[in-house]
Each structure stands twice: as structure tokens, then as C-alpha cells.
């Protein structure tokens, strides 16, 4: 089956990100396809390029990136939720006159319309809330 995950919890604030990553790995292990993880609300902090958690804790940002590298999962970040929280890729940073950027590939800033598309095109959409 084709799955998508909607993640709305901030990393390290509540369990949502860890639950979502664990579920993602489990469904891939069962042979399903995970098309997209969509990061929305405080979930966008999962895309923070500069995240530097202690080395003995799970690195969520790297965990998502590994899903992209190993399974081709697209990592879509709601652009409206991201920009107002200071999460900008190089293009948006330049457009807003900022000197650095905080989001990089494989995360991509996209619109909420993409979430609607994902919901319509995938067999299952599972939400992890804060």
C-alpha cells in the first residue's frame, strides 16, 4: 500500500515525531511504500538543518533524511508554517533578505495543496499530533 504521514508535533517537545518515525520504519519493513511525510504546524521544526541533539539521543532530522535516502520518501514542509517559525531554505532566505538558511534538501518547502494531493493519492494517511 501507499502511505503518507502527517506530522504536527515538535521534535523533543512531545512524542509525536518519535512515534511517526517508528511507524514509518515499521510500515517500510512490512513492504509498504511511504510516499511522503508532510510536516505541518510545529512539526516543521523536524526540518531544522542546524539541529544538534546530544549524541546519545535519536537525531530526528537525520532520521527523516535517511528515509529519503534509503526509500525515496519525499519530505514536504508546509511553507507557511515554516517561514513564520524561521525555517527558510536558501531561496526563501534570499527572498526575505536573511543571511543564513535553516532548511536544506532533502526537505522541501511546499504548499498546503500538496497535503491535499497526498491525502487523495495515497491509500492511507496517518496523522501524528502533538
Amino acid at each position, binding site marked *: 500500500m501507499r502511505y503518507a504521514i502527517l506530522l504536527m508535533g515538535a521534535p523533543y517537545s512531545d*512524542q509525536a515525531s518519535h512515534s511517526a518515525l517508528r511507524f514509518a520504519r515499521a510500515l517500510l*519493513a512490512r513492504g509498504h511504500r511511504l510516499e511522503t511525510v508532510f510536516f505541518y504546524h510545529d512539526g516543521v521544526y523536524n526540518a531544522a538543518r542546524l539541529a544538534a541533539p546530544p549524541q546519545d539521543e535519536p537525531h530526528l532530522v537525520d532520521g527523516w533524511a535517511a528515509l529519503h535516502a534509503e526509500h525515496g520518501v519525499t519530505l514536504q514542509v508546509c511553507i507557511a508554517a515554516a517561514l513564520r517559525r524561521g525555517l527558510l531554505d536558501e531561496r526563501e532566505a534570499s527572498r526575505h533578505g536573511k543571511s543564513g538558511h535553516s532548511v536544506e534538501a532533502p526537505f522541501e518547502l511546499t504548499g498546503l495543496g500538496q497535503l491535499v494531493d497526498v491525502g487523495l493519492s495515497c491509500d492511507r494517511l496517518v496523522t501524528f499530533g502533538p
Partner: protein
Amino acid sequence: MKLHIVNRAPDAGRAVEQALSAMAAEDRLLLIEDGVQGALPSLVDEFASIEGRLYALHEDLEARGLMNRHDERVEVVDVEGFVTLTEQAERTLSWY
């Protein structure tokens, strides 16, 4: 059949109440994260109306030291069982 996923304990907010009121006769309910507290014998009566359709996530019970303390009317599934429940349901709804 829909799968409802709840990550709040019965005494924390209205997630459990809202999920139960939204459930159709065949729907199932999975307790995850702090929601697994609902599997304790002292709280499980909240779910009397859906007996036989109540599940709790093994990993989250274990992380809270609650394995073997849950009520026997709750079916415990691991994360692979969580995936299976989503396969069997036509869609999932999360309450938080």
C-alpha cells in the same frame, strides 16, 4: 471500518471522549503514547462501550513501565501490529 488513534490519557482533555463519540459500530481504537494509560484497569471502564475493539501499543506501555499492568480486555499490539491495523482500516483518524 476506521481506526481511531488516541495519544491522550482519559483524564487529559477531551480526546478520548471525542474519539468514542465519533466511533461507528465496527470502528477500532488504538491507544498510543500517554493514551496507553487508558489500558489500566482503573481507567479502562471509559472504554466499556467498545469492548473487543480496544488496542494499546506495546512499545508505549513498556516505555511507561505498564506492561503486564494493563487490563486483559485490551489487546496489546506492537508497532508492526499498528501498521496491520491501518492496513485493515479504510482510513485512520487521530485524536490528540
